[in-house]
């Protein structure tokens, strides 16, 4: 979320940057061509070499090296998250994006494209031996994974009977397919060829679907750079260097023959663009899921937090050590890592949780630690004389806790606990990384489709605020009430 907000702030300033000169002039002056790509799950495009992770390889690395030689400049790789590459280009972090970026009409509204340098189709992948999925129609009524903000996602979403699960990178997508969390996956041919084909548990099935092409993205204000890229690509197509690269990476397909027939400006677009405000109902609907996850995980956090606190305060030695240990470990590690471990890590032990359960568990188990500490300080804030008085009446320790100590502690506990709930509520945005389609995930999907990061971001923020502000009012009134009774 924070990253997106930052991107949003930069977008706001982009009209200023748009006044700058054609990037080709800068490239000429500096002798450096800066190009954006993402290495996460990036094979065979741009990815860390398994033998030496410090070295980044891929067919696009080879491509850009060749482009650089042809243009007489030095290519320099700028890394960024894939869905941010276009915004990065727009604010001038790089001169071009070369990273499996499909030429689409939506993108052409905000950036320009070179001629295609690669043609590809979408590929269905299923578990080995599962022959149900030969065409798009076969995917109806099934859970199908794909990469977020790609042509494949659009194709899948055009059929409402398909349950689409978008992932940030292909690795997690194919892993969930192996684990049975998905029935099938639809991704770009090169990705399927690289990741799925060598996997003994998966197989690519059916005919290739649709056809699209990758082009180099260039800023709208740089027609010269675009022309230079086009000239270079044509050159490399004609002299066979492009074909050599693709053959080296096993990516040569008959479709690439179309490359030689290319002339400038033929980049194809796609229809059915939605205005950004049409995504608002989707955001509101996903806000519902955010509420459900928040409430369920808070219930878990309250319950477990109380047990932890009880164990730490009144338990035996072993219980005290266990509870303290749990609280310290949970508070000392990032929630994001805990979610990853729950969802992607546990399957290594044979325990498989669906993403919703993992989200609720992850948030609940995490916040339980914080709740426990709130409860503990709440219980300790009740003067010792109160428990003396309760015990003197002949109450058992349980009676004293439930009838005397806890009701007084609750007034101390409620305000910080409510604040914790507000924080949890906003932290649910993190579960978007384990494929839960809540509000932040919906924002990501809508914004990367329309490039309306600002408008949709403001709507999303407003939704979060509308949901958390009443809680914060409630918390404040509780604090006042507490003051009124006890003082």
């Amino acid at each position: 979320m924070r990253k997106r907000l930052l991107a949003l702030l930069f977008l706001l300033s982009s009209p200023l940057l748009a006044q700058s000169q054609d990037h080709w002039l800068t490239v000429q002056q500096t002798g450096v061509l800066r190009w954006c790509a993402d290495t996460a799950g990036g094979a065979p495009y741009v990815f860390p070499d398994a033998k030496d992770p410090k070295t980044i390889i891929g067919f696009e690395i080879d491509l850009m090296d060749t482009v650089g030689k042809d243009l007489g400049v030095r290519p320099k790789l700028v890394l960024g998250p894939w869905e941010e590459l276009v915004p990065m280009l727009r604010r001038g972090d790089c001169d071009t994006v070369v990273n499996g970026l499909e030429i689409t009409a939506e993108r052409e509204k905000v950036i320009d494209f070179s001629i295609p340098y690669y043609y590809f189709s979408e590929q269905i992948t299923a578990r080995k031996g599962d022959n149900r999925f030969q065409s798009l129609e076969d995917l109806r009524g099934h859970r199908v994974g794909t990469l977020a903000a790609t042509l494949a996602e659009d194709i899948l979403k055009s059929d409402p009977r398909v349950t689409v699960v978008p992932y940030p990178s292909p690795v997690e997508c194919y892993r969930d397919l192996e684990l049975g969390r998905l029935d099938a996956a639809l991704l770009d041919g090169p990705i399927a060829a690289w990741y799925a084909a060598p996997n003994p548990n998966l197989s690519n099935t059916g005919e290739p679907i649709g056809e699209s092409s990758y082009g180099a993205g260039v800023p709208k204000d740089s027609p010269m750079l675009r022309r230079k890229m086009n000239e270079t690509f044509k050159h490399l197509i004609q002299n066979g260097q492009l074909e050599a690269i693709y053959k080296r990476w096993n990516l040569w397909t008959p479709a690439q023959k179309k490359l030689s027939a290319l002339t400038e400006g033929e980049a194809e677009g796609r229809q059915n663009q939605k205005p950004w405000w049409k995504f608002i109902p989707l955001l509101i609907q996903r806000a519902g899921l955010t509420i459900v996850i928040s409430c369920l995980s808070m219930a878990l956090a309250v319950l477990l937090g109380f047990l932890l606190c009880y164990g730490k305060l009144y338990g035996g030695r072993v219980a005290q050590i266990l509870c303290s240990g749990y609280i310290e470990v949970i508070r000392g590690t990032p929630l994001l890592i805990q979610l990853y471990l729950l969802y992607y890590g546990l399957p290594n032990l044979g325990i498989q949780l669906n993403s919703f359960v993992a989200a609720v568990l992850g948030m609940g188990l995490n916040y339980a630690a914080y709740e426990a500490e709130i409860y503990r300080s709440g219980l300790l804030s009740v003067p010792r004389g109160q428990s003396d008085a309760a015990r003197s009446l002949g109450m058992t320790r349980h009676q004293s806790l439930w009838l005397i100590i806890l009701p007084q502690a609750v007034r101390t506990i409620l305000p910080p606990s409510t604040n914790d709930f507000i924080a949890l509520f906003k932290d649910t945005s993190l579960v978007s990384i384990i494929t839960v389609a809540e509000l932040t995930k919906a924002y990501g999907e809508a914004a990367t489709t329309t490039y309306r990061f600002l408008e949709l971001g403001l709507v999303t923020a407003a939704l979060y605020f509308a949901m958390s502000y009443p809680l914060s009012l409630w918390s404040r009134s509780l604090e006042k009430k507490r003051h009124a009774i006890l003082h």
Partner: protein
Amino acid sequence: MPSFIEIRNLTKSYGDHLVIDQLSLDIKEGEIVVFQGPSGIGKSTFLRCLTYLEPFEKGSVRIGNVMLRAGMDEDRDRAAILALREQVGYVFQFFQLFPHLTVLENLTIGPVRVLEVPEEQARDEAIKLLKRVGLEQKAGAYPAALSGGQQQRVAIARALAMQPRAILFDEPTASLDPTMKKEIIQVIEEIRHDHLTMLVVTHEPEFVKRIATRIVTFGAFGRIS
């Protein structure tokens, strides 16, 4: 007549600091014993030991027919400890009313939850007790709305609501101004009867003059005279 309270070799220390060393004492039913002595000498600790609010290392305490021995565990020996506390009321220097309950609820929570008296009966008796301490009109108020003297009168009524055979008073007037002190001494004077034993830790000479049947002076290490 056999003694009602029988303390034998009671020994209590905090770490290396010995507070009470082998104290033995017998108290008969209906006696009103005032404990005197310098501050910090261990009088309050002594009272706390009697109902095992404070565990002790050596010796034993018998009140009525319940015997508490050193080394008992609040969980394991719950039955004996609770049985003893049920028949011994406790009034603290700082009242320790339950601030989240009304005055009436402060009086009924013990009988209802511990003695399992029916709620209605407990309420009737509580109102009678509030009349005795002159606070029936405060039944629905919360403790924070009461003056210190009124709070201590409620605390005494709360102890009486359990129909105890003995009441321990730990400096019951020390945190009150002189008018309120008189109120409390008067109330205590009014509630005494032949079968109620009272142990009072106090510096207040009025107690000695008006109600004490016996005076015990605490010296170092709980040596008494």
